[in-house]
C-alpha cells in the first residue's frame, strides 16, 4: 500500500488536490432551494447509508424482538396449553357432574312419578371381570334390604335382576347375559315371548311364531309373568327379524343403555308401575308416542298403540311361551 502510494505519489497528490478543490467548489456552489452542493452531496451520500443503517437496525431489531417475542410466545403458549388442559379437565369434570345431575334428576323424576312403587336408586360401581358374563355391581346390598331376583331398571327400560346380594353391594345380571330371561310381550300385538340373553350385546326374543308380523322398531315390554318385573316396563325394540324353525329369530335393541349404565333403580316390589297422567300430552299422544323407537315414559308403556301409528299386526293367537327361567 505504502509502496503503491510512493510509486504513484504524483498521481495520488493530483487526485487529492483535485478532490480538495472539488470539495471547495461544492462548499461554495448552491443548488436549488439555496442548498450548498456539499450539503447536497453529503445528504446524497449519507441518505443511502442512513437508510441502509435504518433498514439494518429495524430488521435486526425486528429479528431480535421477534426472537424475544417468540421466546415469550413459546412460554405463553406453554402456559396457555397448560391452562387449556386444566380447563378441559375442569370442563370434563363439569360435564360429568352435569350428566350425573341429569341422570339423578331423571331417576328422581321417575321415582316421583311412581310414589306407589317402592324403589331404590343405586349407583353402578363395577362390572364383571368375565367378558362373556354381562353382570355389574351396584352400591346397594343387604343393608339396603335388597334381595335376589329384584328387578333393576332405568328410566329408559329394563336392565336386569339382582342375582347376588352382599352386605353393601349386589350383583346384577343384565338382560343380555346368556343366563338371563325376561317374560316379554309386544306392546302392540300383545304377543308373548321371552327375551333371553345370548352373550351378545343384543338379547333375543324367543318363542314368537313365524306368522307374527313384526317390524324393526316394534316395542317389547315386560309381561310380568316372570314375577320379577312389573308388567309393561319397556325392554327394548325389535332390531331385526328373521324367520326360523319353528320360531322367528328376533334381535332386541335394549331400551336401557346397558353398556354405559351409571345409575339404576332397584324395584323393591312387584308393584305395577302405573303411568303418570301428567306425561300424556293434551292431544292424547304420550311421550312414548313422540319417540316410538325409544320410549321414555318412565320405561312404562301406557298405550302400546301409540308406538306404531299404523301397525300391520297379525292378531292371530301365538302359542303361549314357556315361563322364563330366571
Amino acid at each position, binding site marked *: 500500500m505504502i509502496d503503491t502510494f510512493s510509486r504513484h505519489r504524483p498521481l495520488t*497528490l493530483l487526485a487529492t488536490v483535485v478532490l480538495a478543490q*472539488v470539495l471547495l467548489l461544492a462548499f461554495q456552489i448552491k443548488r436549488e432551494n439555496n442548498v450548498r452542493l456539499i450539503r447536497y452531496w453529503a445528504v446524497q451520500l449519507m441518505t443511502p447509508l442512513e437508510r441502509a443503517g435504518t433498514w439494518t437496525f429495524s430488521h435486526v431489531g425486528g429479528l431480535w424482538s421477534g426472537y424475544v417475542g417468540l421466546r415469550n410466545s413459546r412460554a405463553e403458549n406453554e402456559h396457555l396449553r397448560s391452562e387449556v388442559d386444566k380447563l378441559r379437565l375442569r370442563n370434563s369434570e363439569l360435564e360429568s357432574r352435569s350428566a350425573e345431575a341429569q341422570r339423578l334428576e331423571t331417576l328422581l323424576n321417575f321415582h316421583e312419578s311412581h310414589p306407589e312403587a317402592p324403589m331404590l336408586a343405586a349407583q353402578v360401581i363395577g362390572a364383571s371381570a368375565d367378558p362373556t358374563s354381562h353382570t355389574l355391581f351396584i352400591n346397594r346390598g343387604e343393608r339396603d334390604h335388597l334381595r335376589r331376583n329384584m328387578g333393576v331398571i332405568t328410566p329408559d327400560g329394563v336392565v336386569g335382576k339382582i342375582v347376588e346380594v352382599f352386605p353393601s353391594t349386589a350383583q346384577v345380571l343384565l338382560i343380555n347375559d346368556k343366563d338371563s330371561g325376561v317374560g316379554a310381550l309386544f306392546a302392540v300385538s300383545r304377543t308373548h315371548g321371552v327375551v333371553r340373553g345370548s352373550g351378545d350385546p343384543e338379547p333375543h326374543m324367543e318363542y314368537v311364531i313365524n306368522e307374527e308380523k313384526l317390524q324393526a322398531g316394534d316395542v317389547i315390554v315386560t309381561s310380568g309373568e316372570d314375577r320379577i318385573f312389573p308388567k309393561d316396563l319397556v325392554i327394548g325394540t325389535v332390531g331385526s327379524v328373521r324367520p326360523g324353525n319353528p320360531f322367528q329369530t328376533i334381535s332386541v335393541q335394549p331400551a336401557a343403555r346397558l353398556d354405559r349404565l351409571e345409575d339404576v333403580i332397584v324395584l323393591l316390589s312387584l308393584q305395577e308401575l302405573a303411568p303418570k297422567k301428567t306425561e300424556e300430552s293434551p292431544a292424547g299422544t304420550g311421550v312414548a308416542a313422540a319417540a316410538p323407537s325409544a320410549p321414555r315414559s318412565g320405561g312404562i308403556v301406557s298405550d302400546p298403540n301409540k308406538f306404531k301409528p299404523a301397525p300391520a299386526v297379525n292378531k292371530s293367537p301365538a302359542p303361549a311361551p314357556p315361563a322364563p327361567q330366571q
Partner: protein
Amino acid sequence: MAYMMNLGAHSEPNVEVHKFYGGTVLGTCLLALVFQAFLHKYGRWSELIDLPLLVTIYFGVSRRNPVSGLFLGGAIGILQDALSHDNPIGMYGIAKTIVGYSASSVGARIDTEHPLSRFGLIFLFFHFHQAILALTQRVLLNHSAPLFTIHLFVDSLVTAAFGVILFALLDRLRKSS
C-alpha cells in the same frame, strides 16, 4: 510557493530540467494574474489570451516535475478564481491543477523547446483546460458550458501563437546550465 516548487524533484534522467532564478516562478505567476486582470479592464480582446494558463503550461513543461506542476497550476487557478467576481473558487483551480500535472508529465517525455511543438502543446492544453472547465461547470454548476466552439478555436490559436512568443521570453529567465 518555493517550497511547492521543490516537491517531487525527480524526473526523467535523459531530459533536461530547467531551473530559474529565485522568485522567478512566483513573480511570473503573479504578473500573469495581474496582467490578466489588468488587461481585462481594457476590452474583451484580453479574453482571447489566458495568461495564467500559459504560465502554468510553461513552468510545467520546463520544470518537468508533476508534483510541483500540479501545485503551481492549482495555486494559479485558485488565485484566478479568487480574482474573478463570480467564479466559485476551484473552477480554474481544478482545471489548472490537472493541466499543470499533465504539462509536467508531457514535458518530461517530449521535446518542448521547438516553437511548433510549443504551439501544438499550448493549443492542445488550451482545449484540454477548456474541456475540464466545461465538464466541471456541467457537473457541479449545472451550466451547459460548451466543449468546443469557433470562438474557442480562435482563442486557442491566438493563445498558442502568443504562448510561443511568451515562452521564448520566459526562456530568458532560466538559469544557464
